[in-house]
């Protein structure tokens, strides 16, 4: 085990996994919020676009999205983030993880919005707030609180789904696992170590989410 730590960049791989998770979580949250707003907007075209987005990205396997990104978009169409193969794969992984999980963030937020009684929106409109003010001042703050539990589940899934990036050659922790296994043969210890990395990353998030949803719960 000590030998492995010396011969392979284990900490670098863990750091890459954390970077993928954090950057994709930010990307997914931004895109997911925009799509959620589209899905509840009064404009039918935007609602349609939002629904299509969710249907396309939620129902496509992440592996397919990632392979399509580097082989299809980057290789065939020449849409590259960087000339460096590893950098390119890294940023495509962030992009696809963001786009894919945005669909789930959107649905988590929308379920949160549905927990806000219709009267809240009516009251917001009747004091003269515009659609965007009603959303930002009244509906979304309450929706986020109602959506904490499903959001946390989505973020946990996102952290674990970063392992799929190994498929397109990103040297995250799963990529490292692959490499070590190929070079040294399968070892229970290394599997266990990788599993522990994810437990350490996700378990506190779950605990934090539970206490947050309890603390933020909107009393009615």
């Amino acid at each position, binding site marked *: 085990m000590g030998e492995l730590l010396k011969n392979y960049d284990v900490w670098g791989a863990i750091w890459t996994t954390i970077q993928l998770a954090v950057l994709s979580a930010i990307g997914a949250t931004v895109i997911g919020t925009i799509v959620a707003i589209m899905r509840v907007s009064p404009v039918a075209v935007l609602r349609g676009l939002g629904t299509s987005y969710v249907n396309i990205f939620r129902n496509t396997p992440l592996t397919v999205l990632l392979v399509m990104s580097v082989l299809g978009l980057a290789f065939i169409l020449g849409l590259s983030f960087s000339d460096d193969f590893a950098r390119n794969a890294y940023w495509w992984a962030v992009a696809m993880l963001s786009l894919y999980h945005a669909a789930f963030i959107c649905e988590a937020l929308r379920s949160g919005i549905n927990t806000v009684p219709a009267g809240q929106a*009516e009251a917001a409109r009747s*004091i003269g707030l*515009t659609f965007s003010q009603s959303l930002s001042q009244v509906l979304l*703050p309450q929706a986020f609180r109602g959506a904490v539990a499903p959001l946390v589940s989505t973020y946990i899934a996102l952290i674990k789904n970063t392992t799929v990036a190994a498929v397109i050659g990103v040297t995250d922790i799963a990529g490292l696992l692959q490499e070590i296994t190929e070079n040294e043969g399968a070892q229970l210890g290394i599997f266990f170590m990788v599993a522990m990395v994810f437990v350490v990353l996700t378990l506190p998030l779950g605990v934090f989410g539970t206490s947050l949803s309890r603390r933020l719960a909107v*009393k009615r």
Partner: protein
Amino acid sequence: MSEPLVVMKDVNKHYGDLHVLKDINLEIGKGEVVILIGPSGSGKSTLCRTINRLETFEAGSITIDGKELPQEGKALADLRADVGMVFQSFNLFAHKTILENVTLGPIKVRKTPKAQAEKRAMELLERVGVAHQAAKYPAQLSGGQQQRVAIARSLAMDPKVMLFDEPTSALDPEMINEVLDVMVTLAKEGMTMVVVTHEMGFARKAAQRVVFLADGQIVEQATPEEFFTNPKSDRAKDFLGKILTH
């Protein structure tokens, strides 16, 4: 009657096949207090809610202070700011304190500086008797207190007219009067009010006119005294017979 503030002309509305508002023509003068009364499903709440377009309508027109009600967007938001609305279920913003509930509109819509908005909000809360609860959240207050806060929230926008959609129907009996007292005071101060209610005591004390609706039509209009003691139409007689026998 003074210059009409709210004018509804041939307003019609359907819910699918159901014709909920039929050729509604109604003028409400400045400072007038009008009671909308009628059996369940008569369209009185719907009528009240069309005045600030929380309910859409297909035909006819509504003007407020000479301005036609816009379809949507910023113009509609601006107009709604001038029309106060008090709901049956209070609808205070559950995630904001009492004070924030009252200052949200003035700060975001009227662009009033925060300190000034808070000072005015405290005055209004004082007036409706819940100033000492300003730091609490809506769920910590009784129904009567919440409804008085809702009235203060509307007043903070300095509305030209206030709509009350069954403001006391969700309240426990002992809390009804504290809300009605506030409304009577408002009426005496000259606020223009449209009130959907069955509170006859309030109607007698504060209203100039009772409008009786049935099946989406205005059936009868009279002063409260006249309407309650000597209704003209059979529908009104039948309705009053039902609510007065107990």
